[in-house]
């Protein structure tokens, strides 16, 4: 069963701004990445899915509940982690998460237990008795994640959870999200404008741009589509480029580095043979991770 299904979902603000246009998506159980550049409509979609924002037309169902009429039931079973800061600085993580657990309908005793458990699961230990104001960005993100999980939802919607984190913090957060999907058994929809980080943790990826669906596929097929190869040679880069283009490889040049769209192992062979023929040194031959924007630059019918 699909956890989220939208049919011709459209959201317009006034006559001019279209946030979502005729969007049809299906999100299966597991960890799903929702990818789109800033302004692609991710946050609008999440608000509609939570039943907070009415759509202009079309329909959407979450956990087989209608967002237009059953928003309250949906919000009982779904957790939400916003992109922006949402923590008052003068309370401790424990106080805040206990309170928010009660706001999800948990009795006081259960709220206390679940808050303690959940904060530990996201990796907050003694710090949870200190006011949130003194936390690092990484710790704040963990508190935001904990409040989304505290009522044991069936699905969590995480809006840009890695925003503002350093590389180590980003890895930890991604690992945690993967754990939520696999070990905790809670389905996850996680948004990001970075394709690369979602590839690592998602079973399925949905790409939207300008409020439209670009792609929806299992991550395995998506990465084949999106990965590219970075090639750098000691000299005669232009010659290498023309040979590769002549052989039908899509090449984009960025400084000294050539970005090739990977078309199976043949691309590697071609690069190896061409470099050998030209007699130049190969400095780099590396699988690249496509940034969202790169992906649309060459995508047929992509973003204007």
């Amino acid at each position: 069963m699909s956890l989220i299904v939208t049919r011709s979902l459209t959201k317009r603000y006034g006559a001019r701004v279209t946030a979502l246009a005729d969007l049809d998506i299906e999100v299966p159980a597991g960890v799903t990445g929702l990818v789109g550049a800033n302004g692609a409509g991710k946050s609008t979609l999440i608000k509609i899915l939570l039943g907070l924002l009415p759509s202009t037309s079309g329909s959407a169902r979450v956990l087989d509940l209608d967002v237009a009429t059953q928003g309250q039931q949906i919000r009982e079973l779904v957790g939400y982690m916003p992109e922006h800061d949402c923590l008052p600085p003068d309370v401790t993580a424990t106080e805040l998460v206990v309170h928010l657990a009660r706001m999800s309908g948990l009795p006081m005793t259960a709220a206390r237990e679940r808050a303690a458990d959940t904060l530990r699961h996201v990796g907050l230990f003694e710090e949870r008795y200190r006011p949130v104001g003194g936390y690092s960005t990484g710790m704040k993100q963990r508190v935001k994640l904990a409040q989304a999980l505290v009522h044991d939802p069936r699905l969590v919607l995480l809006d840009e959870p890695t925003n503002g984190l350093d590389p180590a913090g980003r890895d930890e957060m991604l690992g945690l999200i993967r754990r939520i999907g696999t070990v905790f058994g809670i389905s996850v929809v996680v948004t990001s404008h970075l394709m690369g980080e979602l590839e690592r943790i998602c079973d399925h990826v949905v790409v939207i741009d300008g409020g439209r669906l670009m792609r929806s596929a299992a991550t395995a097929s998506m990465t084949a589509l999106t990965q590219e190869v970075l090639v750098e040679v000691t000299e005669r880069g232009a010659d290498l480029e023309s040979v590769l283009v002549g052989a039908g490889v899509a090449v984009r040049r960025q400084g000294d580095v050539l970005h090739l769209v990977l078309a199976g192992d043949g691309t590697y062979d071609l690069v190896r043979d061409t470099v050998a023929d030209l007699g130049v040194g190969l400095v780099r031959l590396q699988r690249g991770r496509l940034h969202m924007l790169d992906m649309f630059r060459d995508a047929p019918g992509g973003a204007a």
Partner: protein
Amino acid sequence: MTVPREAGAIHDIGYRRYEGPRLGVTYIARALTVHSLRGAFGLGRATRSKVMPFLLLAAMVVPAFVIALVVVLGGADELPLEYTSYAVRLGAVVTIFVAAQSPQSVSRDLRFRLVALYFARPISRATYVRSKLTAMSLALFAFLAAPLVVLYVGALLGELDVWDNTLGFLKGVVGAAMFAVVLASVGLTIAAWTPRRGIGVAAIVTVLTLLGGISAIISGIADDQGHETLAGWAGLISPTAIVDGVQVWLLNSSTSIVTGPPGEAGGPVFALVGAALVTACYLLLMRRYRAVTDS
């Protein structure tokens, strides 16, 4: 405190599902109301949050205590003021309480965008707004009724007329409830539209003081020049004077400002305007929170 019990297994106890009850919106609304009510007196917050509300509560109760003491020791045969006029006489203290505690209740949630977490949960905007209004009204009611209790106890100990004082006290309690609802509505509405707490405090003090002042000045001048009707209607400018007017009409109390509502129609009109004011505040609050979820 639970550390010793779990110390051996703190690293990985595995994820446990929650199979217990999920209580409905009624429970959530009540929990939010109680949480906000406690917050209005700084309970469950840091110590410094308790200082202001309890200082103000002391400022509110001490005069009543002094009056009670004078009555008991001095052997007066009636209280020097009506129960219904206490809130108006200590209007400045009441205003400061509304101004200090309303932003505490709503501006904080807005400024730190905590509302996003509330509205991602089962309660609706309307439930949130009603819970906040109820909590602030109850807080103000307690704040206004506490000195009345002191006065009443003083009156009984001083062996004043039991029937008169019981009736007067009950009227005072009804009046306190009306003051509480009206002032909480006005305070929260202004606070919700001024997310910075300091600005909210200043805005509420300014609005309530200014409206009260303008109303009193117009009433005073009109009264001096013999325009008693105009003097009465000028009460409609100030939320406090509106409630005072309703008290005069409904509870048959004497006015605590220049003059009460004029003529036969005055009382009902004051009551209608009071009700309209509360309704308008509610609708404005709802609009404020609609903007929050739509943006």
